[in-house]
């Protein structure tokens, strides 16, 4: 305990009396923190943009067409598959989900959105935040994601016009906004939800598709009676429903086109930024220890133990790193306030917390060599270098 107190005394006195030098290192760490948190927040934002709708589904399993490799756009199921799925033991409910893209053109700037067909009250249809669910059948009604509302100024009760290319012609459809849902981004786009029959009428489609009025769901979201029995129900589904493959939510997210590659890229950037941080901090403290060899020699010669010298080095590194991370965190937050809404920047979540913890650890890790070096300096250096 006496060693730790002495180490604190030495470490803090040195930082305090050399504020300029240590602040400079803290600022370098702050810039690294800014970069790491920025990458983490962008990664989180991009991940959200890709997976949010799937991640927020009130379901534990997703049914795909067999051999679709769990890729949503590649999967197109029979219309009666949802009914068959609902009859399987252990399934509480199942909701078909129909995906496509469209564009809201009744705005000053057209807004690209994901248009999802879902059945009210079933898995796949998110909870209404404001307004009401749309009616079934061919009702020209829509429930929109709050992301659409924020970016366009659309309110419940407004009418929107969408454009879909059907065959070779652009078709325009008017929908009444009857409700709002929250955080339902899909395929990097905010979403609008429409009744299934309406979806089939207004979605972009090829000339061949125009001859059919039958909507085919891409996937079916399956809610289990007991979420702990995922594997059991999955096996039952595969045994009882023909021509399907089944995945849990995580597998589905990882197979969203581009998701894994994108996240891998972002994580690699984050990793290398952290690595640079380790090298910068390690380099600085190593140079500092080399400059302090005679001083450490004197400290040891007059009776300071290795514990005091070692702990002083650790405490100093932790303090300087913590100050740098705090400044960097604050800067990142300030920057985030000025970023346009189109940049997917999410400054919370596990990824940002993990980044902060990692940043706090890179200091002691980067300074490890210098700490070991400091402990190994012989007190004789005080005489020989003196």
């Amino acid at each position, binding site marked *: 305990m006496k060693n730790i107190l002495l180490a604190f005394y030495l470490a803090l006195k040195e930082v305090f009396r050399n504020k300029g030098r240590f602040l400079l290192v803290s600022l370098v760490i702050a810039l690294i923190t800014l970069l790491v948190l920025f990458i983490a927040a962008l990664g989180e934002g991009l991940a959200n943009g890709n997976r949010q709708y799937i991640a927020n589904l009130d379901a534990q399993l997703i049914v795909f067409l067999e051999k679709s490799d769990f890729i949503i756009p590649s999967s197109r199921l029979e219309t009666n598959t949802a009914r068959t799925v609902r009859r399987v033991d252990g399934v509480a409910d199942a909701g078909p989900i129909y995906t496509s893209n469209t564009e809201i053109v009744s705005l000053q700037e057209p807004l690209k959105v994901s248009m999802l067909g879902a059945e009210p009250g079933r898995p796949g249809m998110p909870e209404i935040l404001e307004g009401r669910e749309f009616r079934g059948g061919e009702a020209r009604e829509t429930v929109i994601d709050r992301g659409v509302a924020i970016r366009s100024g659309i309110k419940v009760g407004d009418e929107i016009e969408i454009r879909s290319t059907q065959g070779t012609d652009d078709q325009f459809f008017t929908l009444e906004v009857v409700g709002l849902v929250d955080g339902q981004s899909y395929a990097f786009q905010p979403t609008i939800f429409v009744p299934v029959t309406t979806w089939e009428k207004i979605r972009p489609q090829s000339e061949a598709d125009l001859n059919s009025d039958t909507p085919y769901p891409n996937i079916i979201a399956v809610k289990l009676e007991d979420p702990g029995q995922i594997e059991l129900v999955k096996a039952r589904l595969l045994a009882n429903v023909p021509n399907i493959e089944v995945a849990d939510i995580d597998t589905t997210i990882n197979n969203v086109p581009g998701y894994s590659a994108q996240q891998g890229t972002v994580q690699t950037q984050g990793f290398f930024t952290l690595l640079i941080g380790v090298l910068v901090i390690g380099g600085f403290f190593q140079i500092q220890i080399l400059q302090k060899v005679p*001083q450490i020699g004197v400290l040891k*010669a*007059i*009776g300071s133990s290795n514990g005091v010298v070692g702990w002083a080095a650790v405490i100093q590194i932790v303090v300087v790193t913590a100050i740098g991370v705090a400044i960097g965190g604050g800067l990142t937050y300030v920057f985030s306030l000025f970023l346009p809404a189109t940049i997917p920047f999410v400054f919370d979540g596990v990824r940002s917390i993990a980044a902060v913890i990692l940043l706090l650890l890179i200091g002691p890790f980067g300074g490890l060599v210098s700490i070991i070096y400091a402990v190994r300096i012989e007190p004789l250096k*005080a*005489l020989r270098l003196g």
Partner: protein
Amino acid sequence: MSNVALEVKDLVKSFSLDGATIHAVDNVSFQVKSGEFVALVGPSGSGKTTMLSILAALLAPTSGQVLIDGQDLAQMDEKRRVKLRREKIGFTFQSNNLIPFLTAQENVEFMLRLNGQANKAGRMRSAEILARLGLNDRLHNLPAQLSGGQQQRVAIARALIHNPAVVLADEPTASLDTERAFQVVETFARLVHENNRAGIMVTHDLRMCQYVDRVLQMQDGKLVRVYETKDEIMGLAMETVKH
């Protein structure tokens, strides 16, 4: 002068170099009593610094004994040697003596902190000893704001503040001009005598010997001559001045 604070018996320190054995310290014996100030002199390579390193418990001897306040260094592990350095030994070095980010008073008090004696009385004692060394207006100055002589005086205060049995000085005047060098050694000698400590100073500068009670002259690792009388010592000191 009464108790033997430091006793060296048949001390040998050998190094191997290119297959040959070099005796840096060769069968040296002497004693230093409390209140006695001794100079260790000799040309470069005579073994002075090696001897001082052994006396400071920084280097283990090849054979022989070093007893500080009756405790045999050879019987101690590293942890006990660190404790001995902290409690029983006071140090001044050639340069880089002080911790650069601590003020003069904090540097002196640091010895008390190391020994768990940092309290109000300790603070008063450190201010008092620095005042006696003429540094009462420099208590809160950092080493960089002090002259070389002032730094050495702070180092002397630090070496004595915790009442060690032995005070060791490694070329304390090496980086000082003549006038300051004389002042520093005179102050050192006075405090060693007043505080009844055993003081050993390694020096090249024989003029400084006029302030010591005894001079031990080393050559090729051996103790070749001891100057004990005032006349002998003054003769040695003056001889350098003449040259």
